[in-house]
């Protein structure tokens, strides 16, 4: 005891980061000028520049029992998504309204009607599980947390508003002569349930319901971007088997060796999230807020998320050459105004190119 070294008055970096995370991040973002670093480079505690996102790794078809799956790794955030299709016969849909015509032409009206079908019959069912022990704040075996429910709502809204899946691909047709699982004739009329021999037109008998299950394996901030990327990659990977309709028994079946068809996915919307870090915590003092500096941290990690209040998520799609915004969510603060949102579109475009590169690998 007596021989112990005199107590040191300085802490190593990890201890400082743990004890007072806010000043620690502030100091790395606004480093002081010293003789050996005349022009210090601002960086975050994780070594990234403020506008630098983590690289993305995507691996598809790793789950053997799902129709489509993807594992997405963004830094230490790892998300796995599996898409499983189940057949829903129209006879078991409550309040099923047969439609007179399914327009083959790809106009606006047809697409909107298809979107209504997806929504009315709940053909896309996303669910996210955070309570996997992926981070200390999520305890396993408890009901879904607010974050899990929020992300699941956001994924559901985005799936429908972006219309990545066309209802056309999920319809299952039956005709007495030949089975046409996905295609349909121009004048495809909905017929009655009788199996007359002279009946020629195909009949809509069932739908595919896609269960999109998202599992966060490891959580290190920015769960929505990773989850959405996993959903998109898994849907792009999805192959549904060709269904045969047995009109005698009134059941749909697909054999193990049946031919599989790839699901058509429209567009490539990519989410890009950033958080705002303030020099002074908001509301600590009412005066002098005009010189409160801020940094916009792209793709925040877990420790940064706890220090930032305001977040922005922009979903962009540059597939058609022109940048289209598919969703914008900004909440929790007043720093991001009109100019910053305009500028953020450019950042999101850059992220889109990065993710597209990772998807096509």
């Amino acid at each position, binding site marked *: 005891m007596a021989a112990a070294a005199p107590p040191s008055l300085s802490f190593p970096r990890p201890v400082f980061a743990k004890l007072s995370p806010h000043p620690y991040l502030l100091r790395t973002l606004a480093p002081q000028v010293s003789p050996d670093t005349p022009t210090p480079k601002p960086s975050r505690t994780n070594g990234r520049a403020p506008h630098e996102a983590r690289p993305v790794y995507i691996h598809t078809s790793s789950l053997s029992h799902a129709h489509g799956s993807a594992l997405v790794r963004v830094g230490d955030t790892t998300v796995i998504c599996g898409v499983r299709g189940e057949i829903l016969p129209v006879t078991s849909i409550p309040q099923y309204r047969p439609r007179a015509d399914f327009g083959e032409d790809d106009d606006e009206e047809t697409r909107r009607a298809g979107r209504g079908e997806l929504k*009315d019959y709940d053909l896309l069912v996303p669910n996210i599980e955070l309570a996997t022990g992926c981070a200390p704040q999520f305890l396993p075996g408890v009901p879904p947390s607010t974050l899990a429910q929020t992300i*699941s709502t956001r994924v559901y809204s985005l799936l429908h508003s972006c219309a990545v899946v066309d209802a056309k691909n999920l319809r299952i047709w039956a005709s007495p002569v030949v089975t046409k699982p996905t295609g349909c004739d121009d004048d495809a009329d909905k017929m009655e349930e009788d199996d007359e021999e002279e009946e020629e037109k195909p009949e809509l008998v069932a739908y595919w319901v896609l269960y999109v299950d998202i599992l966060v394996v490891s959580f290190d901030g920015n769960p929505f971007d990773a989850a959405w990327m996993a959903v998109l990659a898994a849907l792009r990977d999805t192959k549904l088997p060709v269904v045969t309709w047995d009109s005698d028994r009134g059941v749909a079946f697909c054999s193990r060796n049946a031919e599989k068809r790839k699901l058509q996915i429209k567009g490539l919307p990519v989410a890009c999230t950033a958080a705002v870090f303030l020099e002074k915590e908001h*509301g600590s003092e009412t005066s002098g807020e005009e010189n409160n500096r801020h940094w916009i941290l792209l793709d925040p990690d877990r420790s940064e998320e706890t220090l930032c209040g305001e977040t922005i998520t922009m979903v962009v799609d540059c597939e058609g050459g022109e940048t289209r*915004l598919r969703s*914008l969510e900004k909440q929790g*603060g007043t720093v991001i105004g009109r100019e910053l949102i305009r500028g953020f579109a450019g950042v999101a475009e850059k992220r889109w190119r990065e993710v597209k590169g990772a998807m096509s690998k």
Partner: protein
Amino acid sequence: MAASTEPEAALSVLPRADGSATYAHAGYTVMGSVNGPIEASRRDEHPYEAHVDVIVRPAAGVGGTRERHLESILQSSLSQLILVKNFPRQLIQIVLQIEATPENDYVNTKLVQASLNFPVVPALLQTAILALLSAAVPMRETAASTVVAVVPQGAKRLLVDPVPRDLEAAHSVHVLAFTSQDELLLAESEGDFTVKEWDEVYEAAKEICCRPRTLDEENDVGPDLRHFLRTTLEEKVAEDLYWK
């Protein structure tokens, strides 16, 4: 066309709550109550600031994932407005009950819907702010919020306070909220739009939420929400001080 009816509100309608308000606009009626600052449960206790707890109850059925999402949006926005640092270890509880939603026979209305319901957000936010003012909770600033839809055709491409039928046809729907210092507090959009379109929406929404007080009746785009908030409170104060 947009329902350009004026919003209606009443303050302190519930006798037992610290503050309460009802607000009706564009087919939505919301009642809100505020209790606080009260003791926080140990789980929610924050050593430096008050915890703002928002509970949204739908018009029918029990709340689901959509209500949790609405609650998280409102919670992060209202924490910015309330001076939470003044009440460490306390709780401010805001309960918002949706009483009426616009009916439409053409739109399929399911009881449980998971997607975010945009037009209800301004009504909820406005009610919460009125109830907070009624409860005299110290706030940094107030806020006003509106919904704008971009519809494909017609004379007016921007539609303020769209009805459900318009929402189905809309290319994109936007919710924006501005603080009383003209800062953008909340922006939620979905659909298919460009930055330029969003700019137009921003202009229109800002006109409604923070118009300077001019009596310019010609280019009336919608209700003047800041003025509305002020007159509602003025009326209430005048009524309360009538005995003097």
